[in-house]
C-alpha cells in the first residue's frame, strides 16, 4: 500500500492538469513509509500519449532524495484521455521491479489515481491512500 501525503496527491493531480494536453511524469519519494515528496520531471516526448524522463533530471532527483533521507517509491505519469491502467507500453517499459507505478487519469470529470506493481509483465493493483500531511512533508 502507498500512503501518500494529501499535499503530494493534490500536487501531482495539479501537475497532470497543468501539463495538458501532454502526459506528465515524475517521481514519488517516501520517508518512514509515507510519500512525502514528489519530483516533477520533464516529459521529453512532449506528447499526449507517451512520456520519457530526462536522465539528468532523474539523477538530480535521486541525489536530492539521498541528501534528504528519502527513498524512491514510485514513478507517476498521467493519462490525459485514457483510464488509470497500465498500457502495453507502460508494462513493457516498467523496468525497475523495486518501485511502484502510479497513473493519474484525467479521462473523467474527477481525476483518478491508481498504483500498480509490474513485475515481469505481470500487473497487480496496489492500494494508494491519501493521508493528512505530517511535519515531514518535503517541498521539492
Amino acid at each position, binding site marked *: 500500500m502507498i500512503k501518500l501525503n494529501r499535499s503530494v496527491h493534490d500536487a501531482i493531480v495539479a501537475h497532470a492538469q497543468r501539463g495538458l494536453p501532454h502526459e506528465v511524469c515524475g517521481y514519488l519519494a517516501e520517508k518512514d513509509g509515507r510519500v512525502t515528496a514528489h519530483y516533477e520531471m520533464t516529459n521529453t516526448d512532449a506528447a499526449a500519449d507517451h512520456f520519457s524522463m530526462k536522465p539528468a533530471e*532523474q539523477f538530480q532527483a535521486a541525489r536530492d532524495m539521498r541528501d534528504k533521507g528519502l527513498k524512491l517509491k514510485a514513478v507517476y505519469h498521467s493519462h490525459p484521455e485514457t483510464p488509470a491502467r497500465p*498500457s502495453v*507500453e507502460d508494462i513493457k517499459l516498467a523496468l525497475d521491479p523495486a518501485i511502484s507505478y502510479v497513473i493519474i487519469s484525467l479521462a473523467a470529470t474527477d481525476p483518478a489515481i491508481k498504483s500498480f506493481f509490474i513485475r515481469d509483465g505481470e500487473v497487480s493493483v496496489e492500494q494508494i491512500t491519501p493521508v493528512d500531511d505530517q511535519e515531514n512533508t518535503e517541498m521539492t
Partner: protein
Amino acid sequence: MRIKINGEAEDIEAEKLTVIDLLRLKNVESPEMVSVQLNGDIIERQDYETTGISADDELDFLYFMGGGSL
C-alpha cells in the same frame, strides 16, 4: 577497489572494470535501458563497454523511465 554506487560505498573484487562489467556484476537486466552517471558525467550507452571505472569513482545508475497511454 572501493567505489561508490548510487551513494553507497562498495568494495568490488576487480582490478579492471568497465561500466558494462559493473552493470552485469550488479545483475542489472537490460543494461541498454539504464542511464549511467560517472563522477557527475552522463555516459553515452555506446561507451559502456569502453569506459573504465577506477578506485574512488562515484557511479550512479537508474532505469530509463517511459511509457504511454495507448
